[in-house]
């Protein structure tokens, strides 16, 4: 992650501390260190690190909930089964990947255009910014219910608009068909996140020195020219960050699916996150080992892909400047 490591490097703290502090001092104040870091480290190790390790451990076992959580070591058998036989996993992985790739492709350019327009001194810009940001503040169940209504075949807003503009032929039950359900859900996350991406990009555009845009205007560059030749290149780092965040967020998508479609129809909106929960608590297999193995696999894939994506996108950026 680009936002992070740069700021977290030890140098940041070092620049602030004075030189004398570097000289050997009295003994380390272990009491104070324990007092300040102790509670946080307790939470962190007890509820994050320890569970992660347990999940890894569980992933090579069969763990029957109905038999009082008895462990049986099975080695890598779960992983073999997931990769070679589990069609639903592959379907879920493909859906999650589609979501993770499609969302940034839609969200980021949309947010960029909106930010650029608002930057062009549109009246009531603050009002629009405030309104567009609002969907992000609602919980997924709330958003899910509202959009179940929007997609209602008979009286939902989606079909209402289509019928109103004479495209009534396209009106359909959006969540009932495996081909339209996933795109319909992707649109919902766009609705939630476009405003947020817009706000971040608007701040980045405001940070561009006014002279650049003014000079281009004086030279006769139209708005589109200014957008593509000045704003986009300068905003590239911001856009890359937002795209990666969007990608990771969508790889983890659970709640919206759970509320709106439960993964249906015909696994059309199943994501890996929902599949893990289903395998653990809804299927009659009652085995926590297998879903743990899926979780481990997906965890590795998310980390690998986000690392790769960060490197790839940032290298291209380095080449261009």
């Amino acid at each position, binding site marked *: 992650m680009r936002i992070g490591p740069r700021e977290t490097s030890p140098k*940041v703290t070092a620049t602030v501390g004075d030189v004398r502090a570097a000289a050997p001092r009295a003994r380390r104040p272990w009491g104070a260190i324990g007092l300040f870091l102790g509670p946080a480290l307790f939470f962190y190790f007890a509820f994050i690190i320890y*569970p992660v390790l347990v999940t890894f451990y569980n992933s090579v076992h069969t763990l029957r909930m109905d038999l009082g959580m008895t462990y049986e070591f099975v080695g890598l058998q779960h992983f073999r089964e997931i990769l070679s036989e589990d069609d639903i996993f592959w379907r879920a992985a493909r859906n999650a990947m589609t979501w993770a790739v499609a969302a940034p492709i839609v969200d980021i350019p949309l947010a960029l255009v909106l930010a650029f327009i608002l930057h062009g001194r549109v009246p009531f810009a603050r009002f629009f910014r405030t309104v567009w940001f609002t969907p992000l503040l609602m919980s997924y169940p709330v958003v899910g219910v509202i959009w179940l209504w929007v997609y209602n075949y008979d009286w939902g807003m989606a079909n209402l608009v289509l019928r109103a503009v004479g495209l009534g032929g396209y009106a359909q039950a959006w969540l009932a068909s495996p081909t339209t359900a996933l795109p319909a859900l992707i649109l919902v996350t766009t609705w939630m996140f476009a405003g*947020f991406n817009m706000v971040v990009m608007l701040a980045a555009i405001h940070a561009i020195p006014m002279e650049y845009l003014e000079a281009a205007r004086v030279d006769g560059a139209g708005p589109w020219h200014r957008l593509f030749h000045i704003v986009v290149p300068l905003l590239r780092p911001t856009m890359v960050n937002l795209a990666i965040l969007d990608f990771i967020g969508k790889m983890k998508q659970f709640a919206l699916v*759970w509320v709106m479609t439960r993964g249906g129809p015909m696994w059309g909106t199943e994501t890996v996150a929902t599949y893990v929960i289903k395998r653990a608590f809804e299927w009659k297999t009652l085995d926590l080992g297998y879903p743990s193995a899926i979780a481990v696999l997906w965890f590795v894939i998310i980390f690998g892909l986000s690392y790769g994506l960060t490197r790839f996108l940032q290298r291209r950026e380095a080449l261009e400047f």
Partner: protein
Amino acid sequence: MRQTLTKATLMIPVLVYTVFSAGPYVWTAMMSLRTTDEIYKSHYGLPVPPHFWKFVTAWTEFGYATYFKNSAIVTVTAVAIITMVGAMAGYGFARRRFAFPWREPLFLMLFLSIMFPPQIMILSLFQILIKYGLFNTLAGLILVYVATELPVTIYLLRAFFAQIPQELEEAARIDGCTDWSMFWRVMFPIARPAVATTMILNFIYFWNEFLYAVVFITKQEIRTLPLAIQFLVSDQYFDIGMLATGLMIATLPVLVMYLFLSEWFVKGMTAGAVKG
């Protein structure tokens, strides 16, 4: 002339997007003040006359009082704990005085766990909570919430504490401050803007959280609002009007605060975006 024309054309996409963005929620808000019968007659009618009594009915008869109370308990407690624990840790990780050999690798690990997918912990947390009698309790949910938001909270506050000049610390020490009183009397008050940002971020996250709640809470009387709504969708599938009222109850606390503190909210959510 040409300028006004460009402005006017710019307004078209702005207005179209605003309708798209606000439309669904405004529509829900209107339905929340209409009875289901009225809604079935015309789904897009105005709430005339507005049935404000529906909020009372939802609150008293459909359990929203309980769900709201549960959400409030979880959110307020978790925010209070995470703010104290997170601020102390952010301070401990930031200041040179507290450096020890494994501190930076530890912090890097903490930072990386910001983007852990919840699935990597949730199944074993389920086991652990059962083992310690915390499954199906609000206390268990609170502990998990605090833990999952700690990394991002510490990350944000550490960045702020690291910027406070060393001179200030030394001046306070000369005045006789211990580490403990220095933190609470000098550093924490200075960090109030950053602390407020994380409080808002965590408040929204806890109020809206769904995944952990759905796995760790199975008793109806301790459901939080997001969880309750998920169940009410299937229970009152055809009672759209009442469900819409419930959605308003679930969102209004956050949205009303957003109305007054929108800059802070935007700042908080943007800062928290490192989570992905």
